[in-house]
């Protein structure tokens, strides 16, 4: 990636949480040595299983969760550990759309009340707050705007809330938008509109977007590059337009198969409990995908594979792709 255009970079980011297990205290690591970079004007997709640490990574990038190890850089400045005051400055450039829309709107304020503060704070002097609000509601399909403006959050449907949350983040005019499942409750048609809107904003305003989702097709659709996470680790990173053809990691393959709804109900998808949580433990040493991987070998459950470069903008972490385990034909 072009270094000069680099907006945000994270080096070996680690986030940990304490977890009680019986009487033992353990540490889980939903973000495990993840390095990434987002260029200005770029859309980076982060996809992965439920519970794989996408939200935690997003919150860490937004400065909401402290980073245990590693460093985070915004426009060349180290932003790994910020004071409360510095954070406020950071947030004037970085915004987040939250996954849980039922939690992310203040229940006692109308849509207009929720939105005028960010608009007011960040509006250009030429626009009136009302016009800007009207405009934002229009482009997100929150029509009729007059009625929507006066609604309290509990009077909105799930998808309508989601769009209000999107408007709020956009109103703050960020350079980087971290969007955590911003369209999960929208029907495909509206989803396409909103995704196109985000893509348009990227082009018009030079907005960079980290698009977090479990929905591979929409990530492939909108993103330039895609990061695939599993069990807190980065397992593959690849250009979106190459993903379908060139992705190599077994988990990405499986995700792709599920996204195509290939052989619904057939064997690859049934059985197998969630090993998910135990692979997040800091004490776990193997490949996070090993417990469920159809081609896992001995080495997979004992040694963590490191990212191997597969090509331009493409790396994957899998023993089967390096020489370390005889890749089985499977």
């Amino acid at each position, binding site marked *: 990636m072009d270094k000069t255009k680099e907006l945000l970079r994270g080096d070996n980011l680690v986030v940990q949480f304490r977890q009680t297990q019986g009487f033992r205290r353990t540490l889980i690591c939903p973000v495990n040595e993840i390095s990434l970079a987002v260029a200005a004007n770029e859309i980076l997709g982060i996809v992965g299983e439920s519970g794989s640490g996408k939200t935690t990574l997003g919150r860490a990038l*937004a400065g*909401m969760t402290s980073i245990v190890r590693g460093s985070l850089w915004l426009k060349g400045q180290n932003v790994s550990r910020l004071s*409360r005051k510095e954070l*406020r400055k950071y*947030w*004037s450039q*970085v*915004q*987040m759309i*939250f996954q*849980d829309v*039922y*939690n*992310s*709107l*203040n*229940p*006692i304020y109308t849509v207009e009340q929720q939105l005028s*503060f*960010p608009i007011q*704070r*960040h509006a250009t002097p030429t626009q009136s707050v009302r016009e800007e609000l009207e405009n934002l509601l229009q482009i997100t399909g929150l029509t009729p705007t007059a009625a929507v403006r006066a609604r*309290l*959050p*509990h009077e909105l449907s799930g998808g309508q809330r989601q769009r209000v*949350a999107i408007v*709020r*983040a956009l*109103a*703050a005019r960020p350079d980087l938008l971290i969007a955590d499942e911003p369209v999960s409750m929208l029907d495909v048609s509206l989803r396409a509109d909103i995704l196109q809107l985000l893509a348009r904003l990227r082009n018009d305003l030079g907005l960079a977007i980290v698009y977090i989702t479990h929905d591979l097709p929409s990530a492939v659709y909108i993103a330039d590059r895609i990061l695939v996470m599993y069990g807190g680790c980065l397992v593959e990173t690849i250009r979106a337009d190459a993903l379908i053809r060139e992705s190599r990691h077994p988990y990405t393959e499986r995700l792709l198969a599920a996204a195509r709804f290939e052989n619904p109900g057939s064997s690859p998808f049934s059985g197998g409990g969630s090993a998910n949580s135990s692979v997040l433990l800091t004490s776990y040493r193997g490949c996070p995908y090993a417990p469920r991987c159809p081609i896992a070998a001995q080495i997979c459950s004992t040694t963590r594979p490191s990212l191997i470069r597969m090509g331009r903008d493409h790396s994957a972490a899998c023993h089967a792709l390096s020489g370390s385990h005889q890749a089985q034909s499977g």
Partner: protein
Amino acid sequence: MAEMTASPLDAKDDGPRRAPNPSRFGWLRVLKKNRKAQAGFIIFMGFILVAVLAPEIARYSPSNTNFPPLQPPSAQHWFGTTGLGQDVYSQFIWGTRSSLIVGFGATLISTLLAVAIGMYPAYWGGWLDRVMATFTNIFLVIPGLPLMIVAAAYVHHSNTLTMMVIIGLTGWAGRARVLRSQTLSLARREFVWAARLTGASDWRVLVHEILPNMLSLFMASLLYGILGAILAEAGLEFLGLGNLSGISWGSLLYWANNGGAVLDGAWWWLLPGGLGIAVFGTSLALMNFGLDEVTNPRLRQTSLASKDRLSRAWRALKGESPQ
């Protein structure tokens, strides 16, 4: 408080917890809508009025002992007289005033403490919150009444102010815990983060996002606080640990009891103090019930009137529109 103790099942039965009309002044609407709350409020205001107007409506000085003792109620002495020849009515009026002053003053102190120790650190989180939470919990396990008795006995000659302080200092912990857990659960909600991210200062977040969301709880806690303080004051006075030169509902009871009102059958001497506490307490409880009914959807009766009205409106609408 209903929100704190609600079991998950209650939550499910509430259905969407979005159902309670969430509005900043939801608790105010209680007065407009709820009969119980209205009744409670009227009684409450009556007492306030009595307290404020005490000098005007008391017919004699409460300490005047020049009347014939132990007179039953009469035209001169509406509530009769005490064993020492004081006018019970005047004592009751003045007692209302000082009981309420102590009650409100103590509540003010405990509220300030509860906010400072429970709410504020909960918002900031981190070690401060942990320390304060531990402190609160330690305080909670110390039984309140004995602590108060010890404190009051230690002070010896309490006056109104020391009474307030003693009651206030012993009464904050439970309220701090309630406010803390509510603040914690709100501060974790993502709209609080969203406000911060869009540029709101901590102050704005606390005052504009969090506090308005817990006003109902805050009001409930306030009502309980006043009730607790009034009861504590009466308790201390009754045990003779209060301000014995002063006149309050508690001291009225104390003197009646010690003066042998029961033995002499002087019910009029005994009754007003107890009734004052009971009725005032009831008014607080009524307001609290009302608050609960409006904010807790489980207790809300569905309004049939509005259902009929909506059905009619709907039929009218359908009649007009080309269906």
